């Protein structure tokens, strides 16, 4: 470091200023409309106020329009007057191996920065929020298309000099601020920004918008960063874990008596779900169907695998048995906890009325689902032949928070009592039994094949056309692939089933399934 003498105008005594050898390079990766531009302005203004030489630029692209955007700032932490006419050359291109502070407002964008080589162990402090804003291709998948972020988090730790990670979205929400004030606080707290905390807070004040909240966000970010927080727990769990305790009774005793510990949580969940869905008898039917699977599991080393077969079968079976029909939907939409939940989601004040409008479009299928088979079957048969299944749907805007809307929904929910005579009930139970038969057959081959067939229940979901597609895809995989195979002497059935299932989930037209089945059947 070269050292030169300079008389500071404010102080009487000459002060010694060290001339840095390189600027502080800051790369900010944000999402369009998140205020990355404002964050950059805060940093630049603060640097200017401290008399530093600073330059920023950006690739906003279509910044407002939700895409990934980057901002780049270089601060030369000394005043021009100290340089005797020489000026640093600040670049507009973020330089791999040269980034001091990498800021990412979202976890996937942190991953992108790592991928582009901007985060290097010798230099870069990574400051990233662990919350997720899902990319369209993650959201649009028919199953679970979310990126597994564990690798990103691992890479963040390994590739950076230090990684400051926490859910800044949550912190912003708690402090009533926006994420960029939390990010600014975290940058300051990391100790790598050359500007003083007061200067940065001053810049926020000058902004004049939501000052107090932004200062709170800043403070929260500052504290967590200066504590070198690396809290990845706050990123949302991918699957729910909750333990349901059954109210005492015959079913509760039966489960406790007959089911192994590891499976209890899921089986209890299933029993509870089906009691509230229909009644105790229906929950009993669930256990009767599950028993043989459990027996097989216990007899074939389920112990060692934590009874995963019993657990997965319980999950799939219970979820399917609690299929969503008109009655179920009406029931769910008139639950006592629904309106309160919506009120809190919208942060509605205690004396602010909330009107809830539901968008329903019942049609022939919904009508037939509660009609007995001898009426429903011919109707549906006729409609299917003439491609009129969706022709009689009528759109309803039901004000469920109102007297009439609520009464109507409540009435539909009450039809629970006659669900069993309905056509939908009969058809679902038939397909369930058929699937269970194949599950047992597959289990007799080996556990792996069994698991694959169990997983096929995932295909049956949704409403209207989606549900029709799912059911017929499953029926097709059972009828054309699994059942014939089990009747004969199957080879590599597990592999074939998973191929077929995945292609059924791959696209909403059945094109991919068609081609896969074609290749599988010809074998």
């Amino acid at each position, binding site marked *: 470091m070269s050292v030169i003498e300079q008389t500071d105008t404010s102080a009487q005594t000459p002060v010694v200023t060290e001339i840095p*050898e*390189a600027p502080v390079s800051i790369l900010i990766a944000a*999402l369009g409309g998140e205020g990355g531009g404002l964050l950059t302005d805060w940093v630049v203004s603060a640097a200017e106020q401290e008399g530093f030489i600073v330059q*920023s630029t*950006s*690739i*906003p*692209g279509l910044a*407002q*329009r*939700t*895409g990934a955007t980057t901002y780049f700032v270089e601060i030369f932490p000394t005043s021009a007057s100290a340089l005797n006419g020489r000026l640093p*050359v*600040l*670049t*507009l*291109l973020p*330089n791999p191996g040269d980034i001091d502070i990498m800021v990412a407002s979202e976890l996937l964008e942190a991953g992108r920065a*790592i*991928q582009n*080589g901007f*985060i290097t*162990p010798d230099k870069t402090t990574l400051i990233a929020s662990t919350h997720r*804003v899902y990319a*369209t291709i993650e959201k*649009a998948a*028919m199953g*679970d298309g*979310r*990126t597994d972020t564990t690798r*990103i988090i691992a*890479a963040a730790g390994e590739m950076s000099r230090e990684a400051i990670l926490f859910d800044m979205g949550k912190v912003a929400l708690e402090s009533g601020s926006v994420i960029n004030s939390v990010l600014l606080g975290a940058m300051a707290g990391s100790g790598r920004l050359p500007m003083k905390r007061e200067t940065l807070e001053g810049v926020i004040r000058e902004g004049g918008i939501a000052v107090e909240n932004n200062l709170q966000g800043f403070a929260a970010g500052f504290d967590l960063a200066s504590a070198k927080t690396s809290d990845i727990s706050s990123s949302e769990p991918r699957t729910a874990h*909750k333990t349901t305790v059954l109210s005492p009774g015959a079913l509760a005793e039966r489960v406790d008596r007959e089911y192994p510990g590891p499976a209890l949580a899921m089986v209890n969940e*299933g029993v509870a779900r089906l009691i509230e869905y229909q009644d105790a008898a229906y929950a009993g039917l669930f256990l009767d169907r599950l028993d043989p699977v459990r027996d097989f599991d216990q007899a074939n080393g389920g112990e060692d695998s934590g009874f995963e077969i019993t657990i997965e079968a319980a*999950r799939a079976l219970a979820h399917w048995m609690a299929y969503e029909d008109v009655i179920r939907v009406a029931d769910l*939409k008139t639950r006592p906890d*629904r309106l*309160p939940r*919506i*009120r*809190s989601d919208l942060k*509605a004040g*205690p*004396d*602010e*009325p909330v*009107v809830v409008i*539901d*968008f329903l*479009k019942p049609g022939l299928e919904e009508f037939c689902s509660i009609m007995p088979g001898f009426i429903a079957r011919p109707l549906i048969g006729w409609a299917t032949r003439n491609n009129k299944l969706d022709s009689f749907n009528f759109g309803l*805007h039901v004000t*469920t928070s*109102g*007297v009439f809307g*609520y009464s109507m929904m409540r009435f539909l929910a009450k039809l629970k009592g006659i669900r069993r005579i309905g056509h939908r009930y009969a058809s679902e139970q038939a397909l369930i039994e058929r699937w269970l038969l194949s599950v047992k057959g597959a289990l007799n081959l080996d556990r792996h094949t069994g698991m694959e067939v169990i997983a096929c229940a995932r295909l049956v*979901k*949704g*409403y*209207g056309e989606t549900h029709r597609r799912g059911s017929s895809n499953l029926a097709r995989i059972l009828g054309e692939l699994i059942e014939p195979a089990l009747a004969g002497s199957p080879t590599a059935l597990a592999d074939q089933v998973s191929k077929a299932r995945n292609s059924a989930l791959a696209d*909403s037209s059945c094109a991919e399934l068609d081609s896969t089945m074609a290749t599988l059947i010809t074998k």
Partner: protein
Amino acid sequence: MERSFKKEVQSLRLGDGDTFHGEGILAVTKALLQSGVSYVGGYQGAPISHLMDVLADAQGILDELGVHLETCANEAGAAAMLGASINYPLRGAVTWKATVGTNVASDALSNLASAGVKGGALIVVGEDYGEGASIIQERSHAFAMKSQIWLLDPRPNLTTIVDMVEQGFQLSEASSTPVMLELRIRACHVRGSFETKANRQPEFSRRNVLENPDFDYGKICLPPSTYAQEKQKIDVRLPAALDFIREHQLNEFFDGDKDDVGIIVQGGHYNGVVRALQQLGLANVFGESQIPIYVLNVTYPLVPDEFVQFCAGKKAVLIVEEGQPDFIEQAAHSYLRKADINTTIVGKDVLPMAGEYVAAVLQEGIAKFVEGTQPAGVDTSTVVDTVARISGYKAKAAELLGEPVPPRPPGFCVGCPERPVFSAMKLVEQETGPFHVSADIGCHTFSTLPPFNMGNTVLGYGLGLASSTGVGPNFGNRVVSIMGDGGFWHNGLTTGVANAIFNKDDSVLMIFNNGYTSATGAQHIPSTGTNARLEPTGQDIVSALKGVGVKWIKRVRTYHVSEMRKVLGDAMTTKEGGLKVIIADGECMLAVQRKKKPVDRKAVADGDRVVRSRFGVDEACCTGDHSCVRLSGCPSLTIKSSGDPLKSDPVAHVDEGCVACGLCGENAHAATLCPSFYRADVVQNPTAFDRMVERWRRRYISWLGGSAPATGDVA
């Protein structure tokens, strides 16, 4: 306009010796005023959209100086505007986006360049190349060469950029030639500082008008003038330009002690090259480089003797020239050959022929150059090791990440009025079977991305319909063409609509009427109703359509998916021939929210009754199929882990960003999706009546066993 510069434009008033702090675009505007322009104009488009916005917001200051601002219909109009400088000593500047703009401007531009100018004529071109670019990747350089227009590519710091604007006008006048100033995306958005001069009153302007029109057949583009003009370009204007560039040292030489090699660089890439050298230990932070550098702030015309002078006595020279073809490198070869100098020229053999010169590319290219030429006194090994170390990190990162992170392209904003139209088109396709879509330039081009993946071709701004005329007749189904209102006024009305009527084309045109050129930042257009100065204009799309003879015109609110589905279905199947135009009405949601938010905030504060709405998904009803997402792609319609142990797939979820545009409900109906969606209206500052109704509803519902009124009592 999306962004207001009302505050920033005050810095356009700065005088001699003041210090300007701000964005590159604003600095250029200041430079124009310091140069005493009489008129300015242009057509918006990233990265120079803000130049138009700044000028519009600076109207007051422009009036004081008598400067006229024209927000032109398109780039051709902007280029034609420069005609003012052909006969008269008027300085003028226009701006547009990259080669796409220059393409549109070419006709006027060629004629302007041939006639030559008396007053300085400057074209500020925002080069949209590389990361963040939204257009086809080409160079402006070729245009400068073919028309003999001079091309400036200044070092990307505000002082140099401003200086080159001022020098550009002088160069233009000294050589009677229009001048292009090329600014790359990062340079347009660079925020820095420079020392200002006072603004200059133009000699002639609205305040001091011209008296006598000048007629000179020599300036008309007809023979024999055109022959004379071409000769003059080469015999008079080019030499004059070269003299000016030499005398005023527009290009810069930086010495270095390792002078058996050298680097020749486009001004715009100087900072990147210096940083790469610094990283390789060959320069310091002040740009003091061990290797001599010749900076081309003027990339056309090149000054042959400067090349010769720089290369003489060097064993090798690296030319850093972004994009293709390698015009500068080729020229350098011929200059040295003619001067019989054997310096090796290195360029596209160590740097890529195509693609942006980002930091890593420059680093590796320069390292290869040093390694290959072994300059005396340079420790080549450290250079090579540095690059190896840095690229090693990238390899390691890729290994740790396993698979590449999913891309995140831009898309329709929350509540965008254009999204529902493509939802409807998807639904229509289910009935009619797939059809060819001639897409256009604008926000609606995002339809080509997931989840819609609609739009088979994009041929240019306002050319959606025109690009359907060849393919249309070759399809069984009718072809659907897309056009934004921006593209419609840019040239779509004539090139597309009038032509389709004229040729009796049987096709369907969807015009997105969102009120602005939204993709470029919501600048006003004829059908906005007002111009940039907010003066009413009384122009609209329907009367324009009728005026050119369109009979079949239907207007549909974009958010009414079912109706849009029906109308488009009719247009596709009706026996009626000819052009069928559907106007999809829906104001840009960004603009709507910009206006609505402050109004609502104030109303709530004033205690007025305000209804706040948001959509939601009943988690328990959602089966995690995500067909709603595939039909919408709205940023605020997202997914979250299901709270239900029985459901393994994530469920749909509407986040706080929702502006209740209504699409979710519309789709749920139009597509018979599922009953999971609901809309919730929160009544803020409820009236006594609201409270009473709410009270009775809650009593009734809790009586039926619904929600207990415990959650907040209605007073």
